[in-house]
């Protein structure tokens, strides 16, 4: 295919929250698909395999790298969820005004962090 002129890419735009939320949506989604789903299957598979296999799973899950992975995946879940809800709203044609779009972008990123902290606080205390 002939070399065609490309539209300006990442380097030329002034960064804004709407760009970050879009990039994070793809990164968290593909990250969960490639890393989170194997973890989900390991969890279900070790439960099905019996107590010894599940004990090995818990050993990994409770180690420092397991906690980093699980907290990271839970943040990816809540971030993808909140920016996904933003997508549902925008699918209806709402939220395209610049200031509204910017506010909801920041809200979806912050909301995900709040949900992640609240989730782990609830798991560890309740």
């Amino acid at each position: 295919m002939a070399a065609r002129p490309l539209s300006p890419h990442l380097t030329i735009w002034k960064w804004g929250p709407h760009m970050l939320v879009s990039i994070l949506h793809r990164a968290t989604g593909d990250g969960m698909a490639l890393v989170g789903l194997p973890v989900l299957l390991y969890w279900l598979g070790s439960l099905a395999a019996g107590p010894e296999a599940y004990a090995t799973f818990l050993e990994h899950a409770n180690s420092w790298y397991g906690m980093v992975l699980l907290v990271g995946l839970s943040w990816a879940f809540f971030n993808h969820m909140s920016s996904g809800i933003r997508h549902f709203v925008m699918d209806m044609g709402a939220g395209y005004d610049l200031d509204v779009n910017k506010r909801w972008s920041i809200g979806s990123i912050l909301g995900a962090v709040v949900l992640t902290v609240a989730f782990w606080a609830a798991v560890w205390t309740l």
Partner: protein
Amino acid sequence: MGNGTTIGKVRGLGSSGHGSHHWLLQRFTAAGNFLGGLFLAVTFIALPDLSYETLSAWFAKPFPATMVALFVISVFWHARLGLQVLLEDYVHTPGNKFTLILLLNLAAFLGAAFGVLSVVSLVTHQQSLTQADVQEQITQTLQGMMGGAGAPGGAAQ
């Protein structure tokens, strides 16, 4: 680029006509992931602990087992659609793109089948365990009625 003519479609250019189907399924499965993910999150918070005994008993119950099995199907379907878009955006060589999407489909079905069968095996294991427990209880009761003579472990006390 193809302009929607027959020869354009043969060459793989222009619209394939499946875009809105892909788009809708991405949203249907997103709703499924939302419900299933929240169910799992609430489960992790509400269960007293995440030990083998607690989790294997909980996920053998009809409603949790159904929710997790459906969640597995929904997330793998959603991931298949999402990773397909990733490949279409960044893999430009037609042969490589075709091969990777083929492998993606195989991997998605493999993962979903493994997850669902794990849930099924949890359910059947729990049922067999319950029957074994009942049989053990009956045996112990019978031994008790016969005076407990020769009961295992009795002599050591």
